[in-house]
């Protein structure tokens, strides 16, 4: 069924979309068949999200045709696309935080009679969909705001799934998912495609595209630069050059001779009820320490606690010998700590503010004299970072809201690269960042480290932890269970530890 024989369900021709000052789509063609997983590939800002927003009725195209099931259509609003059988999971979560899980799954489509919502039936159905996604344990009555971000992603998937769509669009669904969750997601996708449902899948991770994809369309600068490539057979080199117009030599910069300096961070016996327990670790100047672990293993909470964004129940955090006051972000920042948090929109960005102001959000005081800010100096510094990280489109005056997801992420990380930071806590720094920019970001991180900055890195991508870190800590269920030099580990071992952990239970190194 995954052959040439399958019927074409969707065809886009010459789609154009303009935003003020930016042409996001400049003639995109796309063809999707029933039962296939069609991957969209492209750099940050290439127009992937914009394209699917056009498809799902969130944006109106300025030109071009959309053929859906053989007929030309135009969706005035998202509901119209939904009714036509197109369900979308957006890159940025679109849940109503104050409502329950079940309410969110059926938002706008509540099973009702005479205007009264059948709450029982709704909860039952929500439970069913969640179970199908392998997450029957998410309580359907829980307020969405209280869920961790991975669970939110599942809920938003459940919503799309519950629509019984003929085309399911997923914009970087794996960005917030851990390894095993992605496996789960792929299982569901395979079930769906077996029923003839088409899937459009966006991801920056090539391995995923190889694993789940059937065909690939590559976008570059808002145009289709290659269409309908074979997802399994096309060489990586070709994909990358179609995307970026160049080849990438290596992703991870070569590791310099490892000679960490003085002890910078010393965490001892740190505990936070319900999140992690008795964590001790050290980071030296000029060292990158990576924490591998599943989403929900307490990694992000650990970083936030070290940073003072949460108040530890027990234990101490010392920076260069100085004990930090628990629960005091400002004390941490004064000591030269910086943190790029996990959720960029809610935790890190002032969306309506221009890019440069977001880059200098934590440091504008440093560019000021006697309390007077210096736009000039701030901008110069921000432009430097934005160029270094290739924030696209260039121009630091645009509201950060108008940047693509990956570019927003670069702004969040860039904030702490302005200098003056001694110890950087990075939580999923490359989430949603494309291959090229990722290499660039690693480069910048390496340079910082060479200057003596210490880095504590959390990432769901094991290769990233192994490729970048000097030392790796493995975290599971709120405890550090293993510590080793990165060079002595391989992906498989780490994954085993992260998930089952049974083999290594005995050699609790930390």
């Amino acid at each position, binding site marked *: 069924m995954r052959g040439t024989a399958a019927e074409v369900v969707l065809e886009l021709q010459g789609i154009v979309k303009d935003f003020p*000052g*930016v042409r996001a789509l400049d003639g995109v063609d796309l063809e999707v068949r029933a039962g296939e997983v069609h991957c969209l590939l492209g750099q940050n*800002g290439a127009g992937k*999200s914009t394209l699917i927003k056009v498809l799902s009725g969130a944006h109106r195209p300025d030109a071009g045709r959309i053929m859906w099931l053989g007929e030309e259509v135009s969706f005035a609003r998202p509901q119209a696309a939904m009714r036509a059988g197109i369900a979308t999971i957006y890159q940025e979560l679109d849940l109503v935080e104050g409502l329950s899980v079940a309410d969110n799954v059926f938002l706008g489509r509540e099973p009702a009679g005479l205007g009264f919502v059948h709450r029982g039936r709704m909860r039952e159905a929500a439970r069913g969909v969640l179970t199908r996604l392998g997450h029957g344990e998410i309580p359907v009555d829980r307020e969405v705001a209280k869920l961790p971000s991975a669970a939110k992603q599942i809920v938003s998937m459940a919503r799309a799934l519950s629509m019984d769509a003929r085309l399911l669009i997923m914009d970087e669904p794996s960005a917030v998912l851990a390894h095993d969750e992605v496996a789960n997601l792929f299982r569901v996708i395979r079930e769906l495609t077996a029923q003839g449902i088409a899937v459009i899948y966006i991801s920056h991770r090539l391995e995923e595209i190889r694993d789940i994809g059937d065909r690939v369309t590559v976008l570059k600068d808002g145009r289709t630069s290659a269409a309908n490539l074979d997802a399994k057979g096309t060489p990586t080199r070709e994909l990358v050059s179609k995307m970026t117009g160049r080849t990438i030599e290596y992703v991870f910069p070569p590791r310099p001779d490892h000679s960490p300096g003085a002890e910078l961070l010393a965490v001892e016996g740190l505990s936070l009820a319900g999140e992690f327990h008795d964590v001790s670790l050290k980071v030296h100047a000029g060292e990158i320490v990576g924490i591998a672990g599943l989403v929900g293993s307490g990694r992000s909470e650990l970083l936030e606690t070290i940073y003072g964004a949460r108040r530890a129940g027990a234990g101490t955090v010392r920076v260069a010998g100085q004990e930090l006051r628990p629960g005091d972000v400002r004390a941490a920042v004064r000591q030269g700590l910086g943190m790029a948090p996990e959720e960029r929109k809610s935790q890190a960005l002032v969306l309506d503010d221009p890019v440069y102001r977001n880059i200098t959000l934590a440091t504008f005081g440093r560019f000021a004299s006697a309390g007077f800010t210096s736009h000039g100096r701030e901008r110069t510094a921000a432009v430097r970072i934005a160029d270094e990280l290739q924030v*696209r489109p260039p121009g630091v005056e645009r509201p950060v809201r108008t940047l693509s997801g990956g570019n927003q992420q670069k702004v969040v990380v860039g904030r702490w690269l302005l200098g003056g930071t001694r110890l950087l806590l990075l939580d999923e720094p490359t989430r949603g960042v494309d291959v090229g920019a990722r290499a660039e970001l690693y480069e910048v991180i390496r340079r910082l480290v060479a200057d003596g900055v210490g880095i504590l890195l959390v990432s769901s991508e094991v290769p990233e932890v192994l490729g970048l870190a000097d030392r790796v800590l493995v975290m599971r269920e709120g405890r550090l269970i293993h510590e080793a030099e990165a060079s002595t580990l391989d992906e498989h071992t780490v994954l085993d530890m992260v998930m089952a952990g049974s083999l290594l239970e005995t050699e609790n190194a930390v």
Partner: protein
Amino acid sequence: MTVLEKATPIPAGRREWSEPVKRNLGLVGVLIAILAVGAITRPDLFLDLDWLWRNELLILTQASAIGVITVGMTFVMIGGGIDLSVGALVALTSVWCTTVATQQFGSLGMIFTAVVVGVIAGSLNGVLIAYGRLVPFIATLAMLVAARGLAQMISGKLTQRVDVANQFINQLSFNKILGIPALVLIMLAVGVLGWILLNRTTFGRRTFAIGGNPEAARLAGINIRRHLVLLYALSGLCCGIAAIIVVSLSSAGAADHGDLYELDAIAAAIIGGTALSGGRGTIVGSLLGVVIFKGITNLFIVNNLEQEYQLIVKGAIIVAAVLIQQFRVSSLRRRTSG
């Protein structure tokens, strides 16, 4: 690599005005429209330049107290809060600075008292909100009631006249510098200082950050609580200054001064483009909002229309301003996120 350079064809030669600037130009347009309506309905007055100049100065003088308060309110609202107590604080400070005891210290003593009482009461608002974790609406509502009560208690519900010895205060409302009333100059000075504070200092940056995304501000190491206290203290300070203006205009302090000033100030800020949800707003816009309000009132007066119409039209303007704002925000959102 220069991948997306091409995707940014910002049309050359056509400079894009920023959103707030566009809005403020629109407000200036409204002011011109008000003048035009005046010229059409009362050509005898509005085309008499001498009268016109005097009339406009009168409008500005009447706007000066609300104008000063609106500057403080704009800060509070950009920071994501609201201050309902401003009218009551004007009453309280006006009464406190005109007691027999205070007046013994002369005009400067009165000004000092008004400012200090305003700052202390405002800080109290801030402490309740930042450390007591009350929502601003409730905290300042409580302050509204309490401050009015205290004002009545201190004054015994009597009007406290300004002593002849403190002529300076009374004179303020008559004095002109280079033909501009002193009170208007006070409002302008507060506006200019407010503009600098908001747009050129770290204090202003923190205000925008906290209103725009409090969590991001916190994680960037900004001391949110202290800043909230300072914001409400600033609003209180503005109330103190406004109280001097009110006392000067009426030659007296009274517990019923500043009645409903909070509504005028909030409405002016909203008309000026300050977001109720925080993170956005301009001093210039807010002050234009104040002047538009007073200008419309003036139109009604010169045309001898009933007060009732005035109130209805004011209400309609507020609704229209909020609708325009929401429309802008939602169209912006529609263009940007999904």
